């Protein structure tokens, strides 16, 4: 009797190990499924089956593990988001796909390098160069994802139209050299075009919350990877310069010629890395978020306390609006990252409460700044920079304000985490729309100055 019991335990342990190997099925789910399996086995043995027979029937009823982990991955896409094609149909094919991906990514990166090299050879003015910088990289990145996701012809057509329009608006206007509107175009065009990258990245899942959330994750992790590559590249070029210096050769001209190509091509490589080497960063991003959320909260609370104590809130410079935009953007980034890394069904924890403190303090700090600046703007009039900064501020304020309400509801158990996710992902196009307005309308309104 105890012998069959030991055999059964062994079989269950083996089954558990198989289950644990599935990335989409986490330990808590394995525990839940194991309880089910044991209950089923107990029920069947009571009905007269031998333990090993009961185990076989129970496993069969549980269902095919591949299909099961696909279902789990579909429901918990945050666990497996690297694979938009949720699970490879046959394990053998996965390796081959990975290699051809790398080949194409490398090819696209080289293409970006060539395009940038051509731009350098054309001897564009600084203004032209800056305005078109995003157009030298992002169309190729979008193309890579369009290929990878096998987008429909209609979507590809739309994306092509978007990039052509971007090219027209970046170059057709008679910008005054070094004017504000030229700089604003250079800054806002990449933001507007990032939406096109997102549409290609998420593919047919762009209309779903999960698809957009994946794109948010992708954007954050692309940033982290890019910074890492840039740091490594910086160290390497430093050493390269030194060793060539040692033999009396100055390689600075070489850097000037080729560095922009490498900087652009690295974007594609970073994008490929994000998808291919997901699990490496997956653990890092939530850690960074958890590290910086308390720190930013502390800084904000210190700022607010100082304003309240010294009463210096009214003396905020009008140009400081940019700084507050940056701050809200940072808070939004932390919030989005925490959202995208959070297990939707985890219970409310201290970190969630801390996030609410962060949100509220950021909103209060921004309200103090806005109140001070509104007076000054009415005094000194509008400039393109001020209107652009104000617009972004309003956008961020609406986004974070409503997020705070939803977050508070979630903490009190009145709302769902899904509602918060949906609000954030639905809001994304608003930023691209505003950026497009800045690019298309501002130069005309402010006389290209």
């Amino acid at each position, binding site marked *: 009797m105890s012998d069959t019991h030991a055999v059964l335990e062994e079989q269950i342990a083996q089954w558990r190990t198989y289950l644990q190997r599935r990335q989409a099925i986490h330990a*808590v*789910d394995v*525990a*839940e*499924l194991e*309880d*089910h399996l*044991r*209950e*089923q086995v*107990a*029920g069947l043995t009571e009905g007269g089956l031998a333990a090993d027979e009961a185990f076989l029937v129970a496993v069969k*009823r*549980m*269902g*095919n593990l591949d*299909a*099961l982990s696909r*279902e*789990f991955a*579909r*429901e*918990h896409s945050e666990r497996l988001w690297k694979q938009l094609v949720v699970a490879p149909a046959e394990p053998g094919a996965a390796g081959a796909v990975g290699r051809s991906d790398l080949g194409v990514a490398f090819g696209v990166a080289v293409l970006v390098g060539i395009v940038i090299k051509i731009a350098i050879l054309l001897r564009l003015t600084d203004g032209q160069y800056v305005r078109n910088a995003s157009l030298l990289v992002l169309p190729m990145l979008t193309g890579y994802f369009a290929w990878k996701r096998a987008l429909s012809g209609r979507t590809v057509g739309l994306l092509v139209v978007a990039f052509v329009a971007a090219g027209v608006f970046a170059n057709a206007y008679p910008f005054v050299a070094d004017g504000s509107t030229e700089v604003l175009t250079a800054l806002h065009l990449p933001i507007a075009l990032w939406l096109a990258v997102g549409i290609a990245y998420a593919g047919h899942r762009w209309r779903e919350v999960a698809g957009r959330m994946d794109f948010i994750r992708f954007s954050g992790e692309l940033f982290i990877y890019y910074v890492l590559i840039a740091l490594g590249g910086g160290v390497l070029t430093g050493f390269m310069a030194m060793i060539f210096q040692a033999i009396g050769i100055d390689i600075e001209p070489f850097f000037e010629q080729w560095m922009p190509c490498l900087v652009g091509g690295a974007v594609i490589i970073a994008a490929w890395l994000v998808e291919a080497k997901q699990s490496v960063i997956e653990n890092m991003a939530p850690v960074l978020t958890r590290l910086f959320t308390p720190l930013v909260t502390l800084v904000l609370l210190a700022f607010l306390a100082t304003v309240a104590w010294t009463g210096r809130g009214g003396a905020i410079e009008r140009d400081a609006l940019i700084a507050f935009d940056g701050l809200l953007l940072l808070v939004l980034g932390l919030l989005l990252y925490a959202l995208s890394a959070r297990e*939707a*069904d985890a219970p409310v924890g201290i970190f969630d409460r801390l996030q609410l403190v962060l949100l509220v303090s950021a909103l209060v700090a921004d309200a103090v700044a806005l109140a001070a600046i509104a007076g000054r703007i009415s005094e000194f009039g509008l400039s393109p920079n001020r209107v652009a900064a104000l617009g972004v501020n309003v956008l961020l304020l609406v986004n974070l304000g409503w997020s705070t309400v939803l977050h508070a509801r979630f903490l009190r158990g009145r*709302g*769902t*985490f*899904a509602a918060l996710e949906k609000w954030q992902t639905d809001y994304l196009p608003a930023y691209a729309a505003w950026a497009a307005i800045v690019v298309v309308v501002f130069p005309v309104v402010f006389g290209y100055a």
Partner: protein
Amino acid sequence: MLPCISRPAALGDPVSINKDLIAASSTPIVLAILAEGDSYGYAIIQRVRELSGGRMEWTDGMLYPVLHRLERHGHIKARWEVAETGRRRKYYRLTPAGRKQLAEERRQWQAVDATLRGIWQSIIAGPSLGLTPFTCPAQGA
């Protein structure tokens, strides 16, 4: 009079219900079972078997992603408890939002059901279509 339950004439065969229909009906079924009281995965599956007379065969494991989805939408809430067997077990409870959702699902399924009933009736009126008419034991013979 007993309510007439429409059944295909060949009652002996197990009716295999297609995957789409199983998936679509899983939400109202799970919510309704939880409306009877808190429960856990295995017991829910057993209840489904019982209610359907074994005609609805769910793959056991597939229930869990459904439960997790319902929890994410706030329709049900999970908690871990130690069962009488000594094992930790995850119980689910229907939330007020889930109750609302259940009422909504019920309205929708009633509409679908009513529509289908209407069609079945009119098909019986024209037997030339080659479909087996449904018979009601209470009225038949």
